[in-house]
């Protein structure tokens, strides 16, 4: 049975276009246009949904309300769609449990890529987290605390490893500064962004071919970091 995508978007034309391109990829699509409609769908058809695309600006309220409802009971991946490129808002949504966000206008390729990543992480919050990561010759074995680059062991300090492991568990998704600082250093360090800058610099120096132009440990300016989604060994 094909995966079911729930699209909450108030603009009729954008909704029709998105529905079409998502269906072409083989997904089943349910759509809602208003907050009230979305709440009804959530009550009656909520169980069968595999992925949510949620527009923030709905005619009768903020899409954030749906996110809150969803997060209260379900672990389904949510990608937020926003008309404003506002880093404060992105951070708030990600910290509130959104898996990813897209800013209008976005390309279809970008949307489909984000959907694939979000679906891969489906359920990881409940199951044992990702334990193995591999891409561009970088291998991370989270259980064995082992990191290797092109077959050779890389020595990381315990903090560097914790930071890398946190990103690897959410590989492909952006992790906010706050989440990283809380999980790696602890609650009292959420304002110490400069720790992150320095440790990310060290990690890049050890793991990237060209640390000035990273292709694994990506920066999301003003929001957080993203480890590229895992790929084939190579």
């Amino acid at each position, binding site marked *: 049975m094909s995966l079911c995508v729930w699209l909450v978007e108030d603009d009729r034309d954008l909704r029709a276009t998105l529905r079409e391109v998502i269906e072409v990829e083989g997904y089943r699509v349910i759509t809602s246009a208003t907050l009230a409609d979305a709440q009804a769908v959530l009550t009656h058809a909520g169980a069968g949904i595999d992925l949510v695309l949620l527009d923030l600006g709905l005619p009768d309220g903020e899409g954030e309300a749906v996110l809150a409802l969803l997060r209260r009971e379900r672990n389904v991946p949510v990608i937020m769609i926003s008309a404003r490129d506002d880093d404060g808002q992105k951070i708030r949504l990600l910290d509130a449990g959104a898996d990813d966000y897209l800013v209008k206008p976005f390309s279809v390729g970008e949307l489909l890529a984000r959907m694939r990543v979000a679906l891969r992480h489906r359920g990881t919050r409940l199951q044992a987290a990702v334990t193995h990561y591999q891409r561009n010759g970088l291998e991370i074995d989270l259980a064995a605390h082992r990191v290797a680059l092109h077959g050779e062991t890389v020595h990381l*300090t315990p903090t560097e490893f914790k930071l890398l492991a946190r990103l690897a568990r959410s590989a492909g998704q952006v992790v906010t500064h706050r989440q990283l600082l809380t999980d790696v250093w602890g609650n009292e360090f959420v304002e110490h962004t400069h720790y992150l*800058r320095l440790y990310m610099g060290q990690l890049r120096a050890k793991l990237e071919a060209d640390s000035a132009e990273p292709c694994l440990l990506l920066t999301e300016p003003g929001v957080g970091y993203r480890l590229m989604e895992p790929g084939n060994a190579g």
Partner: protein
Amino acid sequence: MSLLDGYLDLANLAILLVLASALVSLSLSPLASLCSSAMAILAFNWAFVSPRGTLVVDLREQVLLLITMLAVSWIVALLMGRQRALAHEARRHAQQADQLRMLGEALRDARAPLEQVDLLGETLEQLTGGPVTLLIPGQDTPANGENRLLRGRASIDQYDGLRLILTTSQAMGPGTGRHEEQNAWFLPMRGRTASFGAALLPVTDEIARSLPLREHAQALCDQMGLALERAHTLYLARTAHAEAQLQGLRNTLLAAIAHDHRTPLATILGAASALLEQNERLSSDQRQRLAATIVDEAQALTRLTDNTLQLARLDSPDLELRMDWESLEEIVGSVLQRVRRRDPERRVQARLAPGLPLLRCNAVLLVQLLDNLLDNALKYSDAGTAVEVQARQENGRLLLAVLDRGPGIAPEWRERVFTAFERGGAPDTAMHRGVGVGLALCRAIARVNGGQLYYRPREGGGACFECSLPLTPLPPHRPHEAPHS
């Protein structure tokens, strides 16, 4: 004194009595000390002046003695009383000056004078001992706007009285010459041009007669009035500024639409309608090219819109920027990642000095600045030539530059390119749309991050846009290893 009787003569005893009276007048009120000294002298006459036991005086010298005693005692008593009244007056003056100073300081430190309305109310209540009512008009129009009672309550008549003095700016109540029959003072809070509030102070008859007290209460009210007037003037200035900004934003958007939006829209419309109407007659290559044109032009339009909106936002008076510690390597890295999509030949090269310190800035804006400068550089220089991003530290500032080997900018255009809706050259020199908005935005971004952006010709030909940003020392605690779990 009777113990000393017999040892001392009458004159010495009289001196002692005068001394006692003087001592008494130190602590009693003038009237009481006048009475007590008169009584003492009568008693002295009774007990010591012969014939003893009567108020009759035998000798004329002794009459003179008694009168002198009385006169000296009274003079001392009156002088002491006067002295005490002066001291009391001085204390009251000091206290009032203190109250004025405290209110003045509180008003100066407050973000809005209305925060200190309770302090004014309490101070006035200390003066009169009764509950004080304060009326402050709405912010828009001092005299006619919506009025608010910020403290206490008022009867309908009293409310009307307060509103009346708001317009007349003249005090009413006992001692003021207006509405003497009232049992309360109505005091306006006067600014230089009008009244910005009114106070109602119920007074007892005794207080009502005190002119200095009323003058002091008026001074306190006027202090609040001046502060409210200042706040009101600021508010008007801010509103006017915001309105001008809004007008400016409207003009900017209109100019953007008129100047730069129509051409990409025309291209998109042309390509899309060709796809729709000539679909069967087009080869698949042609269809692909038309679709690519639509995507390219839509992206250019998106950039133009983003830049225009961001420019308007940065010009807004209540801009609040999130500043954080940022690494320039990271910012350049994420810009490169975006730019590579438009730079398949990898013309952009980054040359960053090693060990650059962290910057205190807004990363999203700096990314937008670099992205715009690189976009221009790629468009205006020939394919195959390199575009460089350089960063280095110099004299406590961080210098970030984007350099190309294109034609550069003619001297007369070097400042004008930073103005929105200008393009660097004559219309026929194939300049691209939206560059003016982009560069105006870049300059605004440099400004809000505490830096400057300027142009200089590059040695050996080409353009160099250099952004100089301030460096702030890092917070004192150095990063440490995370606690082991």
